């Protein structure tokens, strides 16, 4: 009896002790993490939550503005340039993201071959990602120069009169896709890691079954690369929706020609800092958040249909 009561008594004491030591060990963790936590709360969480409120006001940075309810959102629905910027952004995303996956995977497979000096090739394809966006814009403006640019020069050699890339409404967005594809190195690195993860046995087994290169690629490589493709698809879509630096520097913020390069975030920036409409811009930011969020949700929901994880 005495023993029993002892036993029952010790349990809560132990638990209390555990709890105490839990707090104690956590306190130090929190303390070490506190610079980050304070920074996160002050510079991310607070502005994030504040921007929800601002999106319902006419806040202009310099003036607090009035609470106007959903007026900003209503006005956005009637704003032609807002729709144009959405169209431009979606256009860019639809072309850029799939192309970046196709080229990225193809490039990664090529860079995965066992050839002498592969490290050099890999470095070469990764290098463009190190170029700052502003420099990239200047470089490509020269390459795409319709008069004496390298690209039209090469097209001329094979007898094609190249288009007026960045000056034409039809070609300005494809030009931008082309420029963005140049900086694909980051994704290629991830694909390479994914390729390295595919066990050799599977290829050996496929070879034993008499599969050719195409069959191996289609039935082994691609399915097992889908988790990585999935990751790059989500990140690529988010990045594409936030396209800003390249078109902004290239057009000096004007989105020329004829607003064909005015992207969503560029218009948001103009509203916030040029037109003193931070409230309106906050509303735009939240709409963008909802768009990206739902797009990511759709990708996630469909993912269990086409993403194959190893060992499943």
């Amino acid at each position, binding site marked *: 009896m005495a023993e029993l009561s002892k036993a029952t008594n010790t349990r809560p004491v132990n638990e209390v002790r555990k709890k105490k030591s839990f707090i104690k060990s956590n306190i130090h963790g929190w303390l070490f993490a506190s610079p980050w936590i304070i920074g996160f709360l002050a510079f991310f969480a607070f502005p994030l939550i504040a921007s929800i409120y601002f999106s319902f006001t006419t806040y202009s*940075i310099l003036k607090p503005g009035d609470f106007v309810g959903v007026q900003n959102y209503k006005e956005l629905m009637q704003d032609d340039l807002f729709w144009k910027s959405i169209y431009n952004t979606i256009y860019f995303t639809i072309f850029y993201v799939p192309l970046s996956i196709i080229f990225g995977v193809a490039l990664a497979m090529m860079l995965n071959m066992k050839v002498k000096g592969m490290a050099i090739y890999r470095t070469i394809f990764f290098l463009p990602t190190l170029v700052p966006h502003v420099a990239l814009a200047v470089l490509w403006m020269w390459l795409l120069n319709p008069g004496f640019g390298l690209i039209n020069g090469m097209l001329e050699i094979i007898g094609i009169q190249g288009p007026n890339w960045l000056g034409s409404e039809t070609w300005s967005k494809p030009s931008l896709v082309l420029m963005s594809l140049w900086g694909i190195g980051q994704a290629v690195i991830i694909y390479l890691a994914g390729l390295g993860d595919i066990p050799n046995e599977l290829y050996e087994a496929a070879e034993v079954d008499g599969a050719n290169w195409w069959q191996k690629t289609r039935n082994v490589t691609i399915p097992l690369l889908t988790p990585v493709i999935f990751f790059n698809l989500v990140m690529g879509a988010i990045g594409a929706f936030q396209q800003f630096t390249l078109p902004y520097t290239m057009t000096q913020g004007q989105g020329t020609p004829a607003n064909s390069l005015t992207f969503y975030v560029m218009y948001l920036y103009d509203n916030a800092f040029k037109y003193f409409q931070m409230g309106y811009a906050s509303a735009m930011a939240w709409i963008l958040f909802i768009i990206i969020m739902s797009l990511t949700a759709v990708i996630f929901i469909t993912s269990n249909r086409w993403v194959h994880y190893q060992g499943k």
Partner: protein
Amino acid sequence: MLKKRFSKFRTISLLFVTIFTLALAGCTSDNTSSNAGSDSGSSSGDDVTEITFWHGATDIGLTALETMVKAFEEKNPHIKVNMVYTESSEGADQKLLTAVAGGNPPDVALFDRFKIGSWAAQDSLTDLTDMAETDGITKDLYYGYAWEEANYEGRLYGLPYSTDSRLLYYNKDHFEAAGLDPENPPKTIQELEVAAEKLTKKNGNRFEQIGLIPWYGQGWLYGWGWSFGGDFFDEESGLVTADDPKIVEALQWMTDFGKKYNVEDIAGFESSAGTAAMDPFILGQISMKVDGNWTISAIEKYKPDLNYGVTPIPTPTGTDFTTWSGGIGIVIPKGAKNVEAAWEFVKYFGTQEGQEVYFAELPGDLSVIPEVNENLGRGDNPILKQFIDILPNSNSRPVIPEGQLLWNELVTATENSTRENGTPQENLEKATETVNKALEKYK
């Protein structure tokens, strides 16, 4: 045991509190220390007030500014000017924006006059009206448009100092080769069209030489609109009138011009165009262009023997020549700590004395004060003289809270019209509507 733990917990929470207080103190210490700075400044050097002055000048512009500041300090030994470089671009505006919003702006800043309207409407510039009145600074001192651009709704928010204007540059050698009289450049729009046609040499869709691109260089719709006799703003109603029939006419002319030479081919020429030494006018690829007076020094630098002339932007009638001007002003942001000392500096730089010191260092630049240009002999250069001669008839862009929006809308309307996305009438009506709608919230 428990107690010990508790005390540990206490020390940790104490640490937290300390960190927080320090962080908070860090936020406020800026104010106190800067106050202390100016206090100690005023006590140490016989009442010397230090003012902070934000500028974006480099190279010879900086030398001129430094000379002017030195002259000011000699004249006003009780004020010390602390010059702080903030790069001259949109980024500088953003810095000023956050500084004003954060309640810690510089005492004085150089500021694009074009933006005075929108910043004054946001209540972020100090009203200088009374101080100017007391010191007898009136609009009679300046070119009319420059004074207008520094005023918003009848109140003065800055003093103007530099200015510019836009004229038609033409290549005299090209004129001669095309059988045109180089001493008698086009005066009417019709003559301009004829000259442009004679001067254009097109090969396929490439221009070997193009006579004119109306929107190239400084050929904004503002310039053509005013030259066609249009008005962008109605003072009385406070509404934008970019759909003024005369402006529609101007844009229609630009559109027709683009259609005649194929706008995509022109765009190809434009995006191939280089800058500086590779400028197409300097290289002789374009025979006529509308551009500002700063181009004179570029030509002097890169091709001093270029045989060119300037002439006012042609008008439909060949009379009533006009142009438009911008320029920089000097402002006191709202929340500046030493407004009185700042005003002394603004007054010095904004009036004849300071400007003569400043512009003496910059022979290619123009002052907003006619006497300064005269005293410094700006008219001795026959080409620069033409830019000065037109200043009394120049325009400034409407001083409205949505000046930037109007600018962007006009650019969009021009691009859409010349690329035939909608007619000039439709596009300008849309631009007018957009800007007027945005102006509603300031009423």
